[in-house]
């Protein structure tokens, strides 16, 4: 990989608490990398270290070959958007966007033109003279984005930029941010604890836990092949099983891992009256089970099923095919051995 931004064993402590325990990360130019992890795992702290708002206790941060250590935030050419927007309330939207250029001493005309460009980019040309408190949350967030882009940073840091917004606005802004990022080819680090957000927006996802990156990869990789139990649980409703459980379910196992994971949608449900033969084949297995509960989540229907003494969660598309299957019913499960994942020990 052609590293644009490199983090080399970045460490940070607050008092006695080690918050970052040696983070390694390479980001290529134009890439959008998501940091995904539970609350308190150090995501914000990492961004703040990169921005220079917190001082490293160890390790190096290199941007375009230049060590950022010892540089003040304003010398790093890094843009950051905060969860709380942090717009300057005494300045209009336009003045907020112009602010960085003003600090650089650019001419009024140049500033004005650039601000207009950026307001157009975030689709808020008509809000130039409006003060932040008259803007909706989503609009404020977009102004914050435009503001940090105005100074043409080499790197854009987004710290849960959407978490303060409504679900609906959030979904819209997701794609908007992604498309702006792609248009500008802006190298971006994006922090979130929402896995759906991470999966839909990123080129690459890094799962963080307890101050280290435990797994990284494309959204598909991350979703389809979680490496550890932590990642499997964090990424969705993966069924995590101990080795004996997996053995009971699958008969034989590859590998010698202590725990295994099975995606809830990789199991097919077959009504007792259906012919299971269509689902048979190499590496396939049919198991009987009982439905504990069914819940329609909307697009998908979630079944809690007990099979071979193992409690499984199974998702099926809500396409009317399985309508007959209700609570306490017996069903057959079609398992695909190739979908069973071996999990590594935590921290391995």
């Amino acid at each position, binding site marked *: 990989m052609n590293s644009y931004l490199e983090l080399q064993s970045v460490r940070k402590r607050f008092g006695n608490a080690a918050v970052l325990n040696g983070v390694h990360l390479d980001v290529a130019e134009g890439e959008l990398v998501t940091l995904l992890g539970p609350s308190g795992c150090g995501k914000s702290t990492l961004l703040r270290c990169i921005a220079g708002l917190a*001082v490293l206790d160890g390790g190096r941060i290199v941007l375009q070959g230049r*060590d950022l*250590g*010892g*540089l*003040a935030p304003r010398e790093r050419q890094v843009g950051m958007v905060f969860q709380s927007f942090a717009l300057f309330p005494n300045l209009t939207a336009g003045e907020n966007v112009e602010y960085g250029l003003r600090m650089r001493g650019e001419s009024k005309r140049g500033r004005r033109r650039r601000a207009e460009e950026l307001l157009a980019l975030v689709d808020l040309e008509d809000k130039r003279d409006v003060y932040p408190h008259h803007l909706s949350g989503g609009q404020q967030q977009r102004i914050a984005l435009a503001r940090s882009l105005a100074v043409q940073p080499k790197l854009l840091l987004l710290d849960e930029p959407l978490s303060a917004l409504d679900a609906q606005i959030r979904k819209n802004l997701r794609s908007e941010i992604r498309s702006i990022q792609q248009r500008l080819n802006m190298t971006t680090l994006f922090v979130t604890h929402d896995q759906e957000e991470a999966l839909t927006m990123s080129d690459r996802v890094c799962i963080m836990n307890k101050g280290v990156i435990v797994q990284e990869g494309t959204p598909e990789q991350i979703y389809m092949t979680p490496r550890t139990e932590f990642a499997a649980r964090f990424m969705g409703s993966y069924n995590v099983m101990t080795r004996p459980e997996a053995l009971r379910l699958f008969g034989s196992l590859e590998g010698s891992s202590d725990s295994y994971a099975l995606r809830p949608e990789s199991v097919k449900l077959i009504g007792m009256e259906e012919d299971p033969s269509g689902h048979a084949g190499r590496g396939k297995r049919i198991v009987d089970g009982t439905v504990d509960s069914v819940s329609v989540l909307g697009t998908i229907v979630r079944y809690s099923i007990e099979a071979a003494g193992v409690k499984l969660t199974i998702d099926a598309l809500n396409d009317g095919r399985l309508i007959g299957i209700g609570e306490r019913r017996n069903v057959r499960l079609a398992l695909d051995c190739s979908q069973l994942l071996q999990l590594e020990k935590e921290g391995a």
Partner: protein
Amino acid sequence: MDSRRRLRLERRRLLRAPKGCVLVISKKKRYRLRGRLWVLGLVPFAVMVLAFQLAPVWSMLSGSFRSDADSRWTWHNYYTALNSPFYLKAIENSLLISAYSSLIGIVVGLVCAYSVTRFAPTVRDRILMLSNMTSNFAGVPLAFAYIILLGSNGVFTLLFREWGWNVFDGFDLYSWTGLTLVYVYFQVPLSLLLLYPSFYGIREQWKEAASMLGASSWQFWRSIGVPILAPAIFGTLGILFANAMGAYATAYALVGGNYNLLAIRIGSIVSGDVTNQPNLGSALAVLLACTTLLAVSLNAWMTKRSARYLTGAAKAPPRKGFVRQRGTGVALAEAKEGTG
């Protein structure tokens, strides 16, 4: 390296590097150094506080241990202060009047504070503004106003006499009851301003929850409301008490030195035409400061306790629009509450 930067480095070297040490200041160190420059912002503050707050306190403290006669170290001033029935009486009177006036102030303030939170913010802020304004009406003019109202030929004294009411017959404005009454006048607005924000901490939903669980309004206040307010009440009590202990001008304007109060004793020792025992005065001042310090620490301690309840409450989403509603009244109260 440009010359300015070199200069800067040079200066740093002189300041920090040990003699003979080769100058190697990593970039990181420089950044950290620059990061510490904010200390400069604290310097004027430190100087002012040192000069006008700590130095006087120190000088008083050390003076209180020196003899007035020959400025030698001695316990004598405290011995005098704590053994003379004269000064003991002053301390006792001060404590009593402060306790009574702050208790009355708390009760009245509590009721009024609850009531004021029942009004729309605009009305509430107007009431608070007014009471804040009157809380500056103290000292000489206040004492005189009370003489006009309740003196031996005061408006009410005469009115009541005319109407034949004898409830006020035994009342003498120039006695300790009168003093307490006048103290209450400046305690009430202060107590109101300090207490009313905590009523917003009593969430409407607690009342609703309690009412659904079968509690009457009275039961709610007894079992939930007042216990939650308790830290705020005790804290405010501390401030009121300190306030009364330190009150000088009003009392002096009303009764001169005839009523034996600690503040008045200090004032007469320091600024009277008669005696000149500054160190004894210091010792008395230190004793006074000890009681107020105690009262104020009670306040600080209680504020911490009430923060405990508040963090619990803070987890819940704030009432919609509350931030917007913070009018000047809230700001006033916050500003008044020195302890945050």
